[in-house]
């Protein structure tokens, strides 16, 4: 992403456009990333609703997929998983 000059950005660090949390890849902030054991996963999707970053999605087949570009590695998904299918 090409960074803008001081003349091109909104005054006072204000964010005017919605949706920029998608642009900023915050995955590199994480210490540990979650790994899903698809054999243990029962597709209950508790991890999806628990993720504070909306970084867990399901694919067309209904499998749980981690968005590693935006996961900050908080580990909540691993804590809420009833099947212990997520390891950090």
């Amino acid at each position, binding site marked *: 992403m090409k*960074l*803008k*000059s*001081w003349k091109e*950005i*909104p*005054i*006072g*660090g*204000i*964010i*005017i456009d*919605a949706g920029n949390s998608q642009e900023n890849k915050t995955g590199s902030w994480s210490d540990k990333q979650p790994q899903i054991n698809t054999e243990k996963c029962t597709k209950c999707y508790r991890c999806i609703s628990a993720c504070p970053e909306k970084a867990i999605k399901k694919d067309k087949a209904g499998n749980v997929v981690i968005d590693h570009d935006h996961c900050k590695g908080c580990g909540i998904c691993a804590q809420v998983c009833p099947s212990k299918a997520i390891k950090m």
Partner: protein
Amino acid sequence: MDAKFVALTGAGAAAEAMKQINPEVVPVYPITPQTPIVEYFAKMIADGKVDSEMVRVESEHSAMSATIGAQAAGVRAMTASSSAGLALMFEVLGVASGLRLPILMNIANRALSAPINIHCDHSDSMGVRDMGWIQIYSENAQEVYDHNFLALKLAEKVMLPAMVMQDGFITSHAMENVELTSDEKIQEFIGEYQPENPLLNVDKPVTVGALQLTDYYFETKRQQIEAMKTADEIYGDLASQLSDITGRSYPKLETYGLEDAETAVLTMSSTAGTAQAIAKKLQERKKMKVGVIKVRLFLPFPQKELQEVVKDLKSLAVLDRAVSFGSTAPLAKEVKNALFDAKERPQIQSYVFGLGGREIYEKDIAKVYNTLVKGDISQEVKYIGLRE
């Protein structure tokens, strides 16, 4: 003429100006000698003369934080403080300027602790001079009143917060004759506040106060630098607009008797009046070629204007009511910095006076003029009214 003269203290003049500005929100915390400003204002609210929402907070840090919140929401918000109160605001002063919120704050200058002291010096506002606020210093109650409108207009034009200073007790508690301008004329001058991106505009949602790290923080600071430059450029126009209404003028640097002067005293606030009184006597009675330069706009500092007004002077005494421990006093530092590149400049003597409210008299300033006329100028700072 709709001129109306009333007897007001500097604090009363600040409250009167606040009433006419009619800010939506005024979060305040009392501290001597600023307290009468918000006391007068609280009475105005109680009497139904102004409809501002006063928020009684638990500290000055909270006062400034609540002011920032209100202003970011999209309304005019004001507060006032002094000394330790201003020092406690330090962190959030940078939030106000960094978020580009044109908050207006009245300051009654008071010494900082320790030793604990309630009287006037400028160490409080000088201590926060790099926090990105416009700073205007007032000589008397009339200037306090007028400067509030000028500072507000300037602040809103460039989206920077501004503080209007008056000398604690000397100005804040002394009763003077103040000419008030009609509400209509003041409203016409200040206009309606129209923030670009108010937080409460649900049709155009924005995020205020987001993180900026190594990627954008520097660019945002560069914008603040530019805003100060713009403030310097547009100040003159706004000052003459206000001047058209009040009949008084507001140059960045006010000069007295400089036409024939070879020696001048440069200072701020109430002491500029004392200097002017003695300069007049020395000119008339002793035919001395002396003058006075009063700095009204301290930040952004009027470098070009200073170079112009001092070019024919032989010597200049800079009188600071604050110190910079281990360095040159703040006003002298600005003056020397502004004149370093000037082709013609006077010899400069730095003086520190009046710390903790120590009195300064006409005779003290007469001594300064005599010392400079004799050519007794050194690179070492000299002190006025200090027991050696």
